[in-house]
């Protein structure tokens, strides 16, 4: 009896030693401020470089139709001081986010069905992929004729832009699930909806998130295109409409300020929403090196 206990303890020690060797020493992590610095510094320097180049061109060549950074900054701060930029951002964001969420609710089940039913996939996948490459601004004239100059037109254009992306993202997310996972699910006794809920969908999450990210990008650019074309007093003033107003006034600094505002919103959503979400999902699965 005592011999077998000794044997057992030696076995446990052997195993523990092997585990420790295989896992290696714990790596020292960089302090938080250094990590932040190393991720913030390069893009900040790049931005500074571009601004400097812009300023140099403005001063040395003095082109008639290129306002300098200072002028654009003045236009931006003026608009901001009037509260118009904030209002336009809120109006556009509300449309963009709402349109994106509706797209998500419509596109996800479509993607699930197309991924699992081969006949439907063969029938509709080329159309979906085609729609994805069709610039959704092409829908604006039709939408205006169907719905008139109101919010419905804007939402329709967003949906036509975002839905194909999210559908395709869902399909390719599910396609990338290793077949072995499905077999493991079967062996463990998961079938049908249980298999989908517990195994297939969680496994497809990284690809699905990629689809959502692209879907948002399409929502946002579709909305901006639609807002630029569909301008009327009935429509609340979004970033696109504000940009078009600046154009009609021949206010070039205002136009550039508008473009920068649209860009800023796009970057902010990516950095504050999608990047952390994606990082979290990928890191939990060990799919990124911590950086």
């Amino acid at each position, binding site marked *: 009896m005592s011999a077998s206990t000794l*044997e*057992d303890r030696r*076995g*446990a020690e*052997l*195993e*523990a030693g*092997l*585990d420790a060797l*295989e*896992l290696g020493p714990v790596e020292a992590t960089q302090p938080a401020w250094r990590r932040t610095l190393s991720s913030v510094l390069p893009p900040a320097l790049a931005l500074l470089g571009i601004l400097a180049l812009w300023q140099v061109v403005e001063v040395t060549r003095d082109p008639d139709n290129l306002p300098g950074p200072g002028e654009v900054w003045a236009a931006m701060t003026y608009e901001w001081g009037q509260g118009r930029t904030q209002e336009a951002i809120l109006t556009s964001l509300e449309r963009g986010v709402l349109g994106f969420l509706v797209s998500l609710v419509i596109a996800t089940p479509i993607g699930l069905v197309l991924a699992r039913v081969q006949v439907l996939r063969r029938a509709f996948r080329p159309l979906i992929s085609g729609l994805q490459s069709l610039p959704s601004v092409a829908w604006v004239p039709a939408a205006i004729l169907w719905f008139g100059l109101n919010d419905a037109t804007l939402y329709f254009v967003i949906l036509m832009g975002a839905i194909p992306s999210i559908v395709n993202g869902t399909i390719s997310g599910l396609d990338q699930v*290793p077949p*072995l*996972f499905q*077999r*493991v699910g*079967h*062996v*463990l*006794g*998961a079938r049908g909806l*249980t298999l989908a809920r*517990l*195994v297939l969908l*969680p*496994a497809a*999450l990284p690809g699905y998130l990629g689809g959502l990210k692209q879907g948002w990008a399409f929502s946002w650019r579709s909305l901006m295109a639609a807002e630029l074309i569909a301008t009327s007093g009935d429509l609340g003033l979004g970033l696109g409409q504000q940009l078009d107003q600046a154009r009609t006034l021949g206010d070039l600094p205002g136009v550039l300020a508008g473009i920068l505002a649209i860009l800023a919103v796009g970057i902010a959503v990516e950095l504050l929403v999608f990047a952390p979400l994606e990082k979290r*999902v990928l890191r*939990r*699965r*060990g*799919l990124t090196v911590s950086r």
Partner: protein
Amino acid sequence: MTVLDTVLRRSPSLDDVLDADTPAVSVRGLTKRFGSGPIVLDEVSLEVRQGEFVCLLGASGCGKSTLLNVVAGLDAPTAGEVAVPGHRPSLMFQEPALFPWLTAAQNVEMALRLRGVRKAERKEEAQRLLALVRLEGSGGKRPHELSGGMRQRVALARALAQDSKVLLMDEPFAALDAITRDVLHDELTRISREVGATVVFVTHNVREAVRLGDRVVLLSSRPGRVVREFAVDIPQPRRIESPEVAALSVEITDHLRAEIRKHAVPTR
């Protein structure tokens, strides 16, 4: 639906009436071909006693994995019968195939959940199983934070969580380094005896088969047939480098090579 499912559905509580003489796995005249392709398994018959550890040995193309898949109910037999009375067998693959979005403990709990274990009991039971494979401290780790050997042990704990007395293993240690594999051989011998499991273990490594099995079944290739069986009368725990294991390995290897030679294409 496979034959296995039918057997299981017809006799859900066979466990209670299963007497000691009923084979844990019974394969009779199993033939398998995929579509109109070549015959993979040809009239394979095999009976595994309860608590027995059987190693299926063969070169590439002997249909070892196909045989396990049919027994596991993942594939349907073309002809013949497969019965695993009272149990849905658990199956381990060469890759651990742990779900990367779950921790080690959650992977084990998933098997418990699908078996119908109540939520309150899952955590404790998962801890017990992880302790059995000597991973009590690693339940909170995610698969990518574990070494290959540790992952395969979590997969073993997950397989045991199905509470099936029949464990099918498809070359589970083939991708591990030699030292880790050696340690896992000891572990598997210890654990399978501790839980009284019936094991069908597929491998192409003769010494591994002799190290682990109570019986080694040699299969021919293309199509797979049972060629010969070897009883391994060496007391456990064995060492893979012991002279007894080596002697029997030499004998079995000679038979295996004879089988392989039959496939040589005559050269001019």
